[in-house]
């Protein structure tokens, strides 16, 4: 169960977001500027909200009433950033192993889970390459793999398909669907694309102007969208 309740004031905007969800795959859906990435940053610990509480499965990561804020690296989140943020001076393999090595894990190639992740995300042919030589879709798959290998309790996906061309988008989407079916980890997806949300989430939190404007099961979300959006209706047929 993910519990988020945060209040934060920026110079020109306010964030007041509260939701709880027990779903395995949750989506934050809203236009850009709705505060979606700030929520992910707060969960990861990269943003310290002015007030509120964040907890996952009973573990409290942030609670302003208790003056408690667990350091970023002890939270065990897998964060897939919108811009990938692969380490440019390392091979794909070194990127993948960065998490396990940081946690003092096994340094060898047969690290527990590596084969599984490499297989799941089809990374085998990329391992010796540098990030600069990868296509956009490949980069995002590596970023997802790197986050997963850090053995996170929650996978945070920030618009993982934005900026990719159509085929790369489908490729990443397909791999994320496979990941979701495996139920390895709770997923929290941030997106402004209804199609992605419909394809990947169990439950949807609707955000607008720094506030939660609704919460619903994904079936209801998709039906609702298809009535108001002809493109969505065609896609769902």
């Amino acid at each position: 169960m993910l519990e988020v309740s945060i209040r934060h004031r920026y110079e020109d905007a306010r964030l007041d977001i509260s939701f709880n969800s027990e779903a395995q795959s949750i989506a934050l859906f809203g236009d850009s500027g709705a505060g979606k990435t700030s929520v992910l940053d707060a969960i990861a610990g990269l943003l310290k909200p002015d007030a509120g509480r964040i907890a996952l499965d009973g573990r409290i990561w942030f609670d302003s009433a208790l003056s408690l804020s667990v350091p970023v690296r002890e939270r065990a989140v897998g964060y897939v950033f919108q811009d990938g943020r692969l380490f440019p001076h390392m091979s794909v393999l070194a990127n993948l192993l960065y998490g396990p090595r940081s946690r003092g894990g096994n340094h060898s190639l047969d690290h527990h889970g590596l084969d599984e992740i490499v297989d799941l995300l089809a990374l085998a042919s990329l391992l010796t390459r540098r990030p600069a030589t990868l296509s956009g879709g490949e980069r995002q798959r590596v970023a997802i793999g790197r986050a997963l290998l850090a053995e996170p309790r929650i996978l945070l996906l920030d618009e993982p398909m934005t900026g990719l061309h159509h085929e790369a988008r489908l490729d990443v989407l397909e791999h994320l669907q496979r990941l979701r079916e495996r139920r390895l980890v709770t997923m929290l997806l941030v997106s402004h694309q209804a199609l992605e949300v419909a394809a990947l989430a169990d439950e949807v939190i609707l955000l607008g102007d720094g506030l939660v404007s609704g919460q619903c099961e994904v079936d209801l979300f998709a039906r609702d969208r298809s009535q108001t959006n002809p493109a969505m209706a065609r896609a769902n047929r």
Partner: protein
Amino acid sequence: MSDWLSPADFQAFLLSLRIAGISVLVSLPAALAIGWLLSRRRFPGRILVEAMLFLPLTLPPVVTGYALLVLLGRNGLFGGWLESIGIVVAFRWTGAVIAAALMGFPLLTLSARVAFDNVDQRLESAAETLGAGPWRRFLTIVLPLSAGGIAAGCVLAFARAFGEFGATISFVSNIPGETRTLPIAIYELMNVPGGDAGVVRLSVLSLVVAFAATLVAAVLGGRLWGSRRRA
């Protein structure tokens, strides 16, 4: 080489190389630390630190050398205490290293600071979410991505130290084999009748070292900008 240069001049050349090299090595850790602080931390007195950093560049070198003499000379503020624990730097090559390190320090620190500024801090937060602590982030992300700029700074500081004259001659004087560096040898030859040929030879040598250093620094600095591209 020794057919072309007199043994004394060759000795001065080697001494200058050694003093410049060691001065860069000993000042590197502090330069990295201060460069990192200036790049990443806001703290009270920051402007003061930056201003003091520039002092060796703006002060007449002879004043820096005199200050070193007042502080570290045998009768200086700390010199007597240093001598009591067996350390003498005045009129020794180690003193020349201190003078050279001080003069190269601003170049090294400012290069490190710019190199750190150019590392994408979002990569550091990515490393943090993957469980890396501050030292691991510095050693595996910040340092490799700023290595080009830091190396360029080392070369510039080396060149500055290699050419150091004013602070060195006022602090450690001119002792052959101990503190008679290349620039001091040139100055000495200029004051000797018939020393012109020697002056030209040593000046050409200095020119070669200085040009090679700036060339290497430019290439390394170029690599720094190249490595900034993010994944």
